[in-house]
């Protein structure tokens, strides 16, 4: 029977018996070798365990590095988020100015309209009381003609200005979509940071990001299907193949036979 074929327990027992004999015989060199042999199986167990732990840690770090969005988030999306929020500030400022300009243009029109109506009412009252001379009446008739022409022009202008105010409010939709995208980014960032904390606390839980199976193509198609929101300048959006405005949309559609 060779060493390999003997059960480990029997081998150890045989070594222990031999150790007693060599110690009694005073053979220190053989005794030392036997003690090392006796301890070896326990050493191996410890090394195996250590090796397994090292491998686990390495794999966990690798999967985190490979699949986590943290790198992408910090390198690309956070600077993008800054630009997106700047875009929101610019858009809201623009909308507020458009609205204020329309109001500042409307108010004098309304005031002048009201003033002219007041003057005409006074003359009208005098006319009804038969207090107007023929010359004054002629002048009054001329004023009325002018007023009617002006009123038609002014109400058209007011309608145009109110329509500008109406359209300016579309900033809420546009910026709302951009802000929602930044909120999503903050949520992603939080989830990734929680994963990182779990990992460094040694619990080595499965990282959700590692379970992501969609490849880039599927990701992009799914993103397109759900929609991205407005294109924001100076972000990753501008690297995409996007149209610059309605004219380009019309050109593209007409190239498709629309």
């Amino acid at each position: 029977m060779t060493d390999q074929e003997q059960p480990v327990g029997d081998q150890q027992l045989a070594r222990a018996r031999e150790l007693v004999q060599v110690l009694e015989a005073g053979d220190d060199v053989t005794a030392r070798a036997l003690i090392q042999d006796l301890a070896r199986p326990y050493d191996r167990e410890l090394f195996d365990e250590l090796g397994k732990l090292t491998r686990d840690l390495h794999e966990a770090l690798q999967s985190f590095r490979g699949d986590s969005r943290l790198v992408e988030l910090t390198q690309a999306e956070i600077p993008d988020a800054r630009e997106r929020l700047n875009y929101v500030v610019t858009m809201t400022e623009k909308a507020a100015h458009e609205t204020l300009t329309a109001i500042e243009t409307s108010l004098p029109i309304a005031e002048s309209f009201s003033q002219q109506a007041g003057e005409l009412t006074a003359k009208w009252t005098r006319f009804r009381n038969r207090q107007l001379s023929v010359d004054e009446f002629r002048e009054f008739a001329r004023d009325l003609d002018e007023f009617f022409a002006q009123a038609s022009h002014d109400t058209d202008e007011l309608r145009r200005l109110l329509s500008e105010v109406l359209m300016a409010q579309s900033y809420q939709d546009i910026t709302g979509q951009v802000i929602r995208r930044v909120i999503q980014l903050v949520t992603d960032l939080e989830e990734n940071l929680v994963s990182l904390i779990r990992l460094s606390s040694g619990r080595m839980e499965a990282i959700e990001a590692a379970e992501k199976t969609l490849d880039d193509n599927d990701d992009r198609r799914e993103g397109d299907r759900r929609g991205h929101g407005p294109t924001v300048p100076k972000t990753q959006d501008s690297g995409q193949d996007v149209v610059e405005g309605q004219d380009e949309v019309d050109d593209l559609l007409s190239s498709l036979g629309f």
Partner: protein
Amino acid sequence: MKILIVDDFSTMRRIIKNLLRDLGFNNTHEADDGSTALPMLQNGDFDFLITDWNMPNMPGIDLLRAVRADEKLKTMPVLMVTAEAKRDQIVEAAEAGVNGYVVKPFTAETLKEKIDKIFERIESQG
């Protein structure tokens, strides 16, 4: 003319509703995403659909496809009014059977022009 306006932002729905009123369309209804719009379309006698793309639950492109796949709704004119500006997406919408595509932010004139064009084409087709 009974029109359904679908957008998750109530402000945009109001803007479109006001523009349509200016154009003489007073019978407008609203939904805030595709999944609420679809049953309304199936149960109501709508003539025209104006929809956003980027909405929670059911995005506009899915609503468009559902409309085109529905025997009763498949010929309904659909105008997409959206901030989605990728060429791939515009092509996708065209392939799915959209009748017009307006990119946000848009002007009142653009909306009017696209609506007029859609109805002109329908009338010329008989």
